[in-house]
């Protein structure tokens, strides 16, 4: 009996789970290798960057060519490691996105000389470790892995934020980030334990089924006390996610951390961390909202029929997913508005971009609110909208922070005012920056427009007063954001510098070509969006069978 269970487990792990887990395994191996190599004298001469790059490229390649993007639409949903993780289209899409970003990010740090030859391995192992945690976040299928993955992604990030030794601001940022993160993690853990205790399981699909069953008359039935406790637990879990997404009112760490940390780390935190948190958000919303997923263990249709039949007033007004939708909508609206307004008065470019990422977190949460409202297979389009937005956002924010990093190296300043007259020194950098800023606002013909369009389209398609109000909020916010983004462009192009002495280009050719590589997708993805849209659609397909 016992042996058969062990045999089964072993077979499950080695035959199914591990092969689908190769990219993460490669990351693990790379970290170990980087640290080991430094023991040998010959290894000391090797710059860890090359090892890290090779490892992440290999992981990305495995992600692309093993069952990956090409078969996204036909991918079969598989639970790994006895249901702790799940392998499906959403995971593959986001994992590819994260690893692609990792490669671009590593190249950026090389170009800006962030990590030196001697202790580069520390930096790179932190980055790879955080990415590993993020990969787990997007394929988490169990509340325990949810928590572990978030922590695995967060802890290296705390260290990364304080990377520049001896700089007080960086250390301050790291400490703030760590303590704040610990607080948020505590709240989230409390919520998780409440959820698991109330529902008797921590397995996400099972939680979904219990929630549906709880609403029906045929189910065990949840009295209103339990419902309130469930709502509390949901909000607590949301707090943990909101911290990762830097959503208001859990954003307080973001401006200080982004200002204190280097611009490269800012790019990492704002893009990768956010993409992973969004993946997790999608998973949690998909689990909590009734849908047609085949994984549900009980006959959903009969339960739903009974649910409609027994339209008891209290239950229908307090359907968990409606509650979730409203909570997300409120968070999104407040986050977006707060981020945009606070960005107005910033004089430091990194602080401004920090508020900009807060605002974009608002836009990104909006489709999730729409998804929670519509429920069922109708959630596909909003989720696809989030994925499209995240993919486009990757290029926008990476370019913005990369420009800040390059300019820091040559100008020695991160104040917006010091960018005056840059147009004359390096026109192409300014072009890249203006393209990025316009794309962040969402002006065609740039991909940011597509991102914002699909997000708002999902809201309109969902309908209802809350969603329409959200659309209005988002549109007003877009107008507001125009001002502070364009102010940067204005300073770069129109303002005259205080001293005319410098006329040499501000960035090297390598840096300029890097910017070209990250800027072009913003135009290409506007002109040829079909492929990305199709991928995002296919990625969400396997969520609902």
């Amino acid at each position, binding site marked *: 009996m016992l042996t058969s269970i062990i045999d089964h487990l072993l077979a499950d792990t080695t035959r199914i789970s591990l092969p689908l887990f190769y990219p993460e395994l490669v990351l693990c191996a790379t970290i170990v290798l980087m640290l080991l190599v430094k023991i040998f004298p010959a290894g000391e001469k090797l710059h860890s960057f090359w090892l890290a790059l090779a490892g992440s490229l290999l992981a990305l390649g495995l992600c692309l060519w093993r069952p990956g993007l090409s078969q996204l639409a036909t991918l079969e949903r598989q639970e790994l490691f006895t249901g702790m993780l799940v392998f499906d289209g959403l995971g593959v899409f986001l994992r590819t996105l994260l690893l692609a970003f990792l490669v671009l990010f590593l190249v950026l740090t090389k170009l800006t000389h962030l990590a030196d030859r001697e202790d580069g391995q520390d930096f790179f192992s932190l980055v790879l470790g955080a990415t590993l945690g993020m990969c787990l976040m997007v394929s988490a299928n169990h509340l325990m892995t949810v928590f572990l993955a978030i922590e695995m992604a967060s802890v290296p990030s705390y260290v990364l934020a304080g990377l520049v030794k001896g700089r007080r601001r960086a250390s301050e940022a790291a400490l703030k980030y760590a303590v704040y993160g610990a607080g948020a993690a505590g709240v989230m853990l409390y919520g998780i334990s409440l959820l698991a205790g109330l529902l008797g399981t921590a397995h996400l699909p099972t939680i979904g089924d219990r929630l549906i069953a709880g609403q029906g008359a045929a189910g065990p039935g949840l009295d209103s006390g339990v419902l309130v406790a469930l*709502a509390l637990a949901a909000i607590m879990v949301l707090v943990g996610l909101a911290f990762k997404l830097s959503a208001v*009112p859990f954003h307080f760490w973001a401006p200080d951390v982004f200002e204190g940390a280097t611009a490269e780390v800012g790019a990492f935190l704002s893009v990768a961390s956010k993409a992973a948190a969004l993946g997790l958000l999608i998973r949690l919303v998909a689990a909590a909202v009734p849908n047609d997923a085949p994984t549900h263990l009980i006959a959903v249709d009969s339960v739903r029929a009974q649910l409609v039949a027994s339209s008891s007033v209290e239950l229908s007004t307090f359907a968990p997913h409606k509650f979730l939708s409203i909570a997300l909508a409120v968070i999104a609206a407040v986050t977006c508005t707060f981020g945009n307004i606070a960005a107005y008065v910033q004089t430091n470019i990194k602080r401004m971009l920090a508020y900009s990422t807060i605002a974009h977190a608002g836009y990104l949460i909006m489709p999730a609110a729409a998804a929670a409202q519509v429920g069922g297979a109708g959630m596909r389009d909003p989720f696809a909208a989030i994925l499209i937005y995240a993919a486009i956002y990757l290029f926008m924010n990476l370019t913005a922070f990369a420009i800040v990093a390059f300019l820091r190296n040559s100008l020695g300043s991160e104040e917006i005012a010091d960018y005056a007259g840059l147009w004359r020194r390096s026109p192409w950098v300014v072009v890249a920056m203006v393209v990025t800023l316009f794309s962040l606002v969402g002006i065609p013909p740039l991909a940011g427009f597509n991102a914002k369009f699909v997000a708002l389209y999902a809201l309109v398609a969902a309908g209802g007063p809350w969603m329409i109000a959200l659309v209005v909020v988002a549109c007003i916010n877009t107008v507001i954001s125009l001002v502070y983004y364009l102010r940067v462009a204005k300073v770069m192009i129109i303002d005259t510098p205080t001293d005319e002495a410098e006329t040499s280009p501000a960035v090297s050719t390598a840096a300029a070509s890097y910017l070209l590589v990250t800027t072009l997708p913003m135009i290409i993805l506007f002109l040829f969006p079909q492929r990305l849209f199709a991928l995002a659609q296919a990625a969400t397909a396997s969520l609902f069978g």
Partner: protein
Amino acid sequence: MSSASIIPNLLTLAWLLPLVAFAVICLGCSMVQRRQGQVPYELQRRAGLLSVGAIGAATLLSFIALFVWLGTHEWTGGAHGGELHPNGPPRYYADDWYSLVEIGSLKLTLGYYVDALTVLMFAMVTFIATCVHVYALGYMHDELHEVTDHEVNVRGRHLHRPGRFHRFFQYLSLFSFSMLGIVIAGNLAMVFMFWELVGICSYFLIGFYIERHSASTAANKAFIVNRVGDFGMLIGMMALWASVGTFSFGDIPQGDKVQPGLFSQLRNESNDFALVPTVGFVSPQEESADAKYPGYWLLTIAGIGIFCGCVGKSAQFPLHVWLPDAMEGPTPVSALVHSATMVAAGVYLVGRFYPVFTPEALLVIAYTGCITLFIAATIALTATDIKRVLAYSTVSQLGYMMLALGIGGWVAGMFHLMTHAFFKSLLFLCSGSVIHAVHTNELPLMGGLRKKMPITAYTMLVGCLAIIGAGLPIAGIGLSGYYSKDAIIEQALSFAKLNGPHRVLLLAPVLGAVLTAFYMFRMWYLAFVGPPRDKHRYDHAHESPRVMTVPLLVLAFMAIAAGWNVGPLCITGLLESAQPIGTAVGAKGSLAAALTIPAESLSHAPAIKQQAGLWAFGAAALGVLLATVFYCWKVMNSSEVASTFRPIHRLLLSKWWFDELYDWVFVKPTLAIGLGIAWVDRRMIDGLIHFLARCAKWGAGIVGSIFDVRVIDGAVDGLAALTWGGAGELRKIQTGRLRQYVMFIVLGFLALTFAALGVAFAR
């Protein structure tokens, strides 16, 4: 490779070559200009050659495509009597290259629709464009050095400016690309895009001498008047889009399925290819009232809407006012853009869109054409500017084409479009040659130039003979205009026989033919015959260089021969094979029941043919005779006649007061309203906006400084003071802030909970 792939590929390449030339010239020269301050003239000349090379290669490709088409397609090769499409429906190739946007069911694509008409238009447009490009190399050579513009005074002196040879060819290339884009376009949305693109090219080219006030006003006028027409076109597009749900002309293959296009939805085989509105056109009222012809009104309106765009572009009444002013552009532009190709695009679109027009819409088209041809011909009688005579003649000839299309003569109208393109570009280039020699546009300052510039004079004579339709009706042979104009009058006769009340549609073209002959020969006599009226200009006149006369000779040959049946090349035969399915059999009006559009084959009946031939010949002969009496033999004095019919002369001389009318009815009120709105804008809205901006700034200031500094920092400071009992040395900012931050986690959680629970339970 099959012809299905080779022809569209060839045409696509021909279409894109001018774009490449444009991009290279535009980017290259602006880079040089940025670096050196001015583009060297040698480089400008090379830019011109590049442009000529691109269009020349495009011509070659177009003709290869034409011959491939001739070789691979069955077609009737000349008149085939009453038979209709003996080889089945006309062949076409259609597909999409690129999908621009796909939102819901709205699909905007770039695609092609290639049939015999497309191939023929490509050959014609590229051929004429090449002639004009080559001619312009000579005509624009003034721009290859410092230019002194005698028509512009800056502070009492003539304007000096650097030459802009490259700029001219850059726009010319962009224009060629845009024009070919209209011709190859596979759907209405793409037509509209390129429609606007030729509009902007026309704007640039009319305003080429931007420093001249008249040129920039004329460019504005052309652009704005065209927008009026485009407004109607947009309405038509919306009606079609909402009702049929697609913009594409032909059936687009989609995987293994076929997406039916406009034409096949409106004329499908089950209805015997007759025009039947689709379900989408039927309004709920019509459905409930059980209307006799459901959806017919909307279809008619959609057709007229599309035609409105054509009215603007083809300078038809009442939007014809922009074309004569457009002659402010350099003469090669007038020849290419404002006579042969762009203004013909409106006619082309009516022809392309022919399957969608109901008989009622066609009647509107016919009357518009009829009025236009008559009014323009009368104005041309008194014009003294050589280019304006030709401009009004262009408007008049475009009216002929519209009239022909409106009364069912699809082949006649498109045929006249082709022949007119050749002889009108010839006439314009000749006039350019004259202007080049005598440096004036005014006919009263010319005279006797025949001896000084024989090639120009006799090629222009060929053009005049072609436009009046000179030919021998008994032998059945003549210049190109003879065939096409006779075809129009035949169709008009056949139409008038069936529709008594609309007899004016026959009278106008015949009368117009008299006027055409008169004003064309008046122009030729005034310019080339008789004693020179301005001795000084006459002495300085000389024949143009060969780079200008060779295109004249080539075009003169085409003006003579374009109508002939030579071997496999016969434009009418090819056009007949392209005639849209279901339109050749004629139609009967539904709303206007008495209206009958006759089948075009009926007009080939010998009785009609002979009668029409004699009328056309008589009209042309009468016109030439009158012109000769007045201006060659001088038997009668034209100024005496003018003073006898003084009111009419004044009416014609001031162009029927259209410009003044529009000025009073539209321009002045618009300006007045504009001033009023500007006042409101400046005084009231700006104030409001400033106020709002101040509010926003103030709000941001509060959030930024007060919230950030006071609430957070202040609370931090206060809290730190409280917590640490004012122990200043321990008041590390980080520690204080952090406590605050972590407190906010709890506060935020509580706030969120209460807000969400409140909302949930409140409902």
